[in-house]
């Protein structure tokens, strides 16, 4: 299934774009697919839509995966 992966922070900067499209059935597969194209540190977390999600989370049509670099708000 084609999935949109949104990139943030230094990942977006390094990719030179705010999102990628990958082929994946779970959140973790989406991450792995991005790693083929872009170095992604271990500390990056995954969100599905607007919630943090485990790697094994299955994706449904229309879900958006986001890669969340270590946060630095405040």
């Amino acid at each position, binding site marked *: 299934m084609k999935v949109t992966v949104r990139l943030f922070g230094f990942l977006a900067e390094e990719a030179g774009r705010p999102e990628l499209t990958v082929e994946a059935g779970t959140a973790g597969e989406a991450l792995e697919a991005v790693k083929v194209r872009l170095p992604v*540190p271990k500390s990056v977390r995954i969100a599905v839509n607007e919630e943090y999600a485990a790697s094994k989370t299955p994706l449904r049509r229309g879900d958006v995966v986001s890669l969340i*670099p270590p*946060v*630095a708000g405040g």
Partner: protein
Amino acid sequence: MPSNVTVLVNRQALSPVAALRAVTRPDCGGVCVFLGTVRDRNEGRRVRKIRYSAFEAMVLRTFRAIAREARMKFGVRAVYMAHRTGMLRLKEASVLVAASAPHRAEAFAGCRHLIERVKKISPIWKEEFHDRGKRWVNRG
């Protein structure tokens, strides 16, 4: 939790007056407010300005979840949480959190909880600008 929780993330300057108006209640005796402001040094470097970016929709979700936690754990009655994005100069406030509670101990504890959790879970990033160059803070 209904309208006693206000959450904001945008490029506008933070408003302490709006925060106080939102959280002050007749059943509360205290309001605690925390503002994070841009500091001129960080980890040995001289800082000139900071640019914040955010995954806004998810930030708002985390803010609401954090406000619920503060209510459950500390009995705060109203919460205001706002984070600014874009380029900020020294002394400008990047984050403003406020909590009201019947008594001051809960107001302080609740407010502290808000800022600690924002720093842990809210998807916000910052680029620190130096005399030359810049870096992503907490790049991991």
